[in-house]
């Protein structure tokens, strides 16, 4: 049962088709990977799903409800949260407050600030940032800012989480920690759609992988199928 699906999704930048006629679906409880060369349209697709951009044509549905054309904050409140490739933390606010913002925003009714604080504290623990709760977000390393974005996104209580290059800039040992984090998020019942270039992670964590190239979907399948696809090796993996 798809929780998120798109049909014929298309977006132009000037004359260039950044995303062209893309069909996709993500099933409830799945971890789906989105890969492709730089400039293939992966982040643009995430921007279309999260409402930062509006598609020129096509439809995107979340739990059978059309979401394209809605404002980003509406889409987030419905249960679609995301992180950003170029991190967008609230730089001059403490780590805890960044997460609190997510908690207060995501709750449909008034939450007591004690409850929100407890929840935010738990989320920081969950992503491994407890020790840094009072640090200003700008003073975190990039890797930790990305983890902070995960905590902030989770605080909005999403049903699906879009992760845009969570693992860029991590060494293999840190990648292993984040792989484990992603599995724990899924175990909370949250569906995951993730862009990642770290093949070791994408291949072992994902149930299914989609490949974009020049804005078009050129392949889709299990990690095994993708790793052995001639086309994917040529345009993306190399060697």
């Amino acid at each position, binding site marked *: 049962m798809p929780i998120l699906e798109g049909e014929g999704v298309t977006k132009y*930048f000037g004359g260039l088709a950044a995303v062209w006629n893309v069909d996709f679906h993500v099933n409830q409880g799945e971890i789906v990977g989105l*890969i*492709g*060369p*730089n*400039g*293939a349209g992966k982040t643009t697709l995430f921007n279309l799903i999260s409402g930062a951009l509006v598609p020129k044509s096509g439809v995107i549905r979340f739990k059978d409800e059309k979401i394209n054309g809605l404002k980003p904050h509406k889409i987030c409140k419905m249960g679609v949260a995301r992180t950003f*490739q*170029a991190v967008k933390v609230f730089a001059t606010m403490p780590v805890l407050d960044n997460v609190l913002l997510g908690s207060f925003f995501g709750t449909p009714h008034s939450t007591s600030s004690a409850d929100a604080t407890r929840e935010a504290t738990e989320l920081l623990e969950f992503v491994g940032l407890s020790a840094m709760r009072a640090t200003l977000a700008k003073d975190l*390393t*990039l*890797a*930790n800012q990305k983890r902070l974005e995960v905590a902030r996104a989770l605080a909005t209580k999403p049903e699906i989480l879009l992760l845009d*290059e969570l693992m*860029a*800039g*991590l*060494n*293999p*040992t*840190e*990648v*292993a920690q984040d792989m484990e984090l992603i599995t724990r998020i899924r175990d909370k019942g949250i569906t995951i759609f993730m862009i990642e*270039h770290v*093949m070791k992670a994408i291949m072992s964590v994902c149930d299914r992988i989609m490949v974009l190239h020049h804005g078009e979907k050129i392949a889709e399948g299990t990690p095994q199928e993708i790793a052995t696809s001639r086309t994917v090796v040529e*345009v*993306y*993996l*190399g*060697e």
Partner: protein
Amino acid sequence: MLEVCNVNTLYGKAQALWDVCLEINEAEIVALVGSNGAGKTTLLNTISGFLRPASGSVEFLGQRIDGLPPHSIVELGISHVPEGRKLFADMSVRENLEMGAYPHHAWKQREETLKQVYQVFPVLKEREKQLARTLSGGERQMVAMGRGLMSRPKLCMFDEPSYGLAPVLVLEVFQIIKSLREQGITVLLIEQNVRRTLEIADRAYVLENGRICLEGACGELLQSDFVRKAYLGL
């Protein structure tokens, strides 16, 4: 060529580097590895003059450079390709590249250097007039590297050049870095792709919590149990 000696660097009261010593010989590729937050970028910023060490010295070609402003250090022949590319978003690709050529000697030769950069990154020639903000992540990285080369450096420092690049481009970036040595450019490389880095570099330093905890030839480090566990995830 470069000698960093007992450098201590602080952010306010927080000490980020502790008695760091490092040296680079001409035509070497030297790698700097370590976890996020270990102080790698701080060390690069200390060398390029964005940060001043509280104590210790940095010498380049026999001259003290700690305390000099960044632009003077570029003039002397050190170029820094920063983490996260740091392009001028509203300038074109060509303008960004030209910004790298402001040292006096480089400016005179900029047309020629530009040609060389376009040879290394043909896609930048195609995108010459495009604004940097409209480029993909991979293309931005190429502009950042190209801009670093426009100053005709003797020593080029790269901070995570493979960050966010597709695997096929990662291979290309490592190829390019290797080829710089043949052009007589010395390289200091920070990378999280530790295995490939240790494969192309001659020597490496491992930085942990602001201190150099290990150094040696890359072949040896690849065999070291500590490196395999902590940085290769084996």
